[in-house]
């Protein structure tokens, strides 16, 4: 499934680098601890988090993550979005909680 599919199915708001929506998504990772994401996430995962500061971009970049979904109606900081455009990282937001977002993505990836 492509990132665009998730955006449509879950009504996510795309906040940066919309060209990235063509990427394939192969899994998901939910964590607000950056060392944990560095250690355990996999290339192609969508990252689900509450974090909004710019380090999330570098982490997503270095791990080759498909994109970042910022949950709970949190807004990414301006630095974060600027950096995301520059480093070609797609950031999306949703008002859903991390639990629900992870739940729905898990379901979609498993059963489609």
């Amino acid at each position, binding site marked *: 499934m492509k990132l665009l599919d998730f955006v449509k199915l879950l009504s996510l708001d795309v906040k940066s680098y919309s060209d990235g929506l063509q990427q394939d998504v192969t899994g998901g990772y939910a964590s607000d601890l950056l060392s944990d994401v*560095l*250690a355990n996430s996999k290339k192609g995962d969508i990252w689900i988090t509450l974090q909004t500061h710019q380090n999330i971009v570098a982490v997503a970049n*270095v791990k080759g993550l498909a994109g970042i979904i910022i949950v709970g109606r949190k807004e990414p900081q301006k630095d974060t979005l600027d950096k995301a455009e520059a480093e070609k990282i797609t950031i999306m937001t949703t008002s859903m909680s991390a639990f629900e977002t992870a739940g729905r993505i898990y379901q979609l990836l498993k059963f489609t």
Partner: protein
Amino acid sequence: MVTNQAIEGSFQLIGGNFENAGNASIHLKQKLTELGIKEDVVRRASIITFEAEINVIIYAAAGWLRYYIMPQYIKIIVEDMGPGIEDIALAMQEGYSTAPEWIREMGWGAGMGLPNMKKNSDEFKIDSVVGEGTTVEMVINLTS
């Protein structure tokens, strides 16, 4: 192996500068990928570099990160002018952290940095003098 001479580079790290955190890691990742190094090694090198950068940025006034890509191994040396670590064994424990609250709110400071660095390198050496700084030397082998 695609090179028969050393490739090296260095980055200056500024304490408190989170804006550039990860730059060295991303740069090294690109370089290693260009050289055709296998994905698992690239992943490990990225992790140890990023964690090393973040430690300097969180705790030190400034530091340097130098990398050496040799035919048989990759070596990363991080030196900082920080407060130093009083009890290294304690610092190496998973979950142990001296990070202040605002760092933890950012999602750093969960006490996994040094353990992650050790776990992902084949050789790991750390020296520290309280009041002067800390040096970490890590090696990832390219041949098994």
